[in-house]
């Protein structure tokens, strides 16, 4: 029974607790012994991506220490895992502890497909799913074949979802364009960020997406933020929630003009 340290990104901890619970449930369902070390906070990605490496380093060092006792580290986020695996080496000196941490840290879907080698996913999800390919999972962790590169097609998230009864997939016009979240980019380049997000949503709406999902809640936080101000918002769920057997609740439309803002 693999012993897993559950790595829950800070914004999921604070705003999307059910995504954390769903991840925990999925891993336990497949026989893992899962523990959430409560000393964890943030992996340091916002600081590192702003260039403030000295503010990110102590957080990276904490992560290595906190997760040292575990055999594997699993997170419901391609972006935070990419930070650990691909970018910690840019700011920390090479050490055995760092390399071990990087080698044992996995995004949820790839952990299920590559480590646990899950071939059957129980449950039904009779909806048309729009699968958003979060960029860091796609182009840093290579969780799927990116549309730019040439080679055999694969998609670890879809491979899992396809096992569920009744599920269908929306055929998108642009299958893996960025949603425009990009961390602090979302506020620093607010205009472009929102245009990117609205364009992604339009693609999903036109393709008949009923439930919008992704491996990263940060992309979904941005997309749902926009979605909830549209006339007919679609339901938004993290992939862990679907795999855990949750059913869509639907996103509630907000009429922003009624709230006193322009």
């Amino acid at each position: 029974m693999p012993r897993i340290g559950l790595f829950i990104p800070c914004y999921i901890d604070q705003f999307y607790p059910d995504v954390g619970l769903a991840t925990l449930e999925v891993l336990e369902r497949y026989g893992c012994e899962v523990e959430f070390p409560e000393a964890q906070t943030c992996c340091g990605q916002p600081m590192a991506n702003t260039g403030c490496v000295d503010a990110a380093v102590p957080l990276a060092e904490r992560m290595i220490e906190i997760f040292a006792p575990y055999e594997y580290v699993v997170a419901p986020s391609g972006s935070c895992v990419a930070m650990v695996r691909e970018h910690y080496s840019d700011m920390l000196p090479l050490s055995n502890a760092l390399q071990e941490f990087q080698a044992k840290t996995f995004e949820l879907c790839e952990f299920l497909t590559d480590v646990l080698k899950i071939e059957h996913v129980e449950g039904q999800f009779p909806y048309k799913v729009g699968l958003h390919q979060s960029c860091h999972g796609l182009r840093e962790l290579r969780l799927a074949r990116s549309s730019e590169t040439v080679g055999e097609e694969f998609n670890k998230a879809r491979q899992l979802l396809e096992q569920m009864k009744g599920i269908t997939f929306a055929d998108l016009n642009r299958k893996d364009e960025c949603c425009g979240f990009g961390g602090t980019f979302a506020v620093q380049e607010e205009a472009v960020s929102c245009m990117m997000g609205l364009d992604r949503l339009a693609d999903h709406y036109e393709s008949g997406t009923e439930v919008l999902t992704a491996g990263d809640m940060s992309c979904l936080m941005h997309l749902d933020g926009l979605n909830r101000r549209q006339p007919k918002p679609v339901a938004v769920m993290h992939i862990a929630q679907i795999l855990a057997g949750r059913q869509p609740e639907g996103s509630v439309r907000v009429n922003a003009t009624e709230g006193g803002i322009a």
Partner: protein
Amino acid sequence: MAGHATLAKDFVANDERAHWHDKALWFVRHKRDNISHSLPEWETLRETASQVKLHTITHLAKYLEEFEANAKKLGVHVHWASNAAEHNEIVLRILQQHNVKRVVKSKSMLTEECHLNPHLEAAGMEVVDTDLGERIVQLQKEAPSHIVLPAIHIKKEEVGEVFHQFLDTEKGASDPGYLTEAARQHLRENFLAADAGITGVNFGIAATGGFVVCTNEGNADLGTALPNLHIACMGIEKLIPAPEHLSLFTRLLARSATGQPITTYTSHFHGPKPGGEMHIVLVDNGRSNILGSDEFRSSLSCIRCGACMNTCPVYRRSGGHSYQSTVPGPIGSILGPASDPAKHSSLPFACSLCGSCTDVCPVKIDLHHQLLTWRREIYVRGLLPLSKTFPMKVMSKVFQHPGLYAFGGGIARKALRVMPRWMIYNPLNSWGRKRELPEAPKESFRDLYKKRKRP
């Protein structure tokens, strides 16, 4: 100077135009996808090209000397310019020695980078850019907004207006065929009247001293076949070792740039034509500084295909001019700060770090990683405003204390639940201008986890 975000906001404000621009470039990206996916060896080509370029730039001195010696054997005059000013002076001097009054120039981003045209014009010469797109922006007194498609930001109706004003075409005409024919006639007069032709260089071949210029319009050919004087301006990174490496790059270049199997004209120059004179100006202008940096060296492998621009979701929605840099888009956001970090400090942040640029790049430059590295450089050099660094330092402190983080998170969520909407969605909240904030739950995951463990 206004940063990228400000200019991008202006571009996005015209929603119809921003979407038109996005779709025009996505169409090119799509063509590139189709043609690259038709070659099973695509990834091998990219990897090989990347290795050849890295080999060449890490042995650059050797290949430059070899290129110079072989070019001289072909009867070419070779000049060396350490910066833009030297380049401009060398070109001006050659032209003045030949009493040149009228120059035709095919596309060369290097001469844009060096601002050659104004330098020659100040000396009383007339310079006509002969690439159709470049001619359009030249008549509009603008800079190119894209390195391969210089006038991609201009609609055909607007081209019609410019041509009506300068080339006497019918008012209101916007038929591309009609306008192109008018440009063709206009340019032909200039080709025939020119005393000298200037070209850029796509590939210099060290082993032969020859060089290759790729165009779709044949303008480099006509511009060098008619006048007796040909000056080729070439960045020192444009070298490849030998002719056998060339096909690798010509195959990748056109496919990546426009989705064509090859450029319409791939012209090989090996010495002056009979009775003519040929000069090559080799320009450094900051390139050897980049060569000296481990992080950014591979940006010199760039073959200027523009694929990173076509795929960049930010470039497509903000336009080339929002970068205020000779080369815009992802590669320009690396080269710009390399030449002037303070002036271009906003460019590495004009990026969602999606990595699409890295995946389309035919020579596998790790563009988005270099953009991230530039962010760090900008911070280290003290060029990042306090408004960006201070929140990061505070957040870092909070995150180093789990108790403080959990407590602060609880307060923040509570505030979001009880504060009136107008207070949360205040004018300073740029997240909330078009987006809802997530609904703040009463309990965090860690709260629920504790309960779950102790039922």
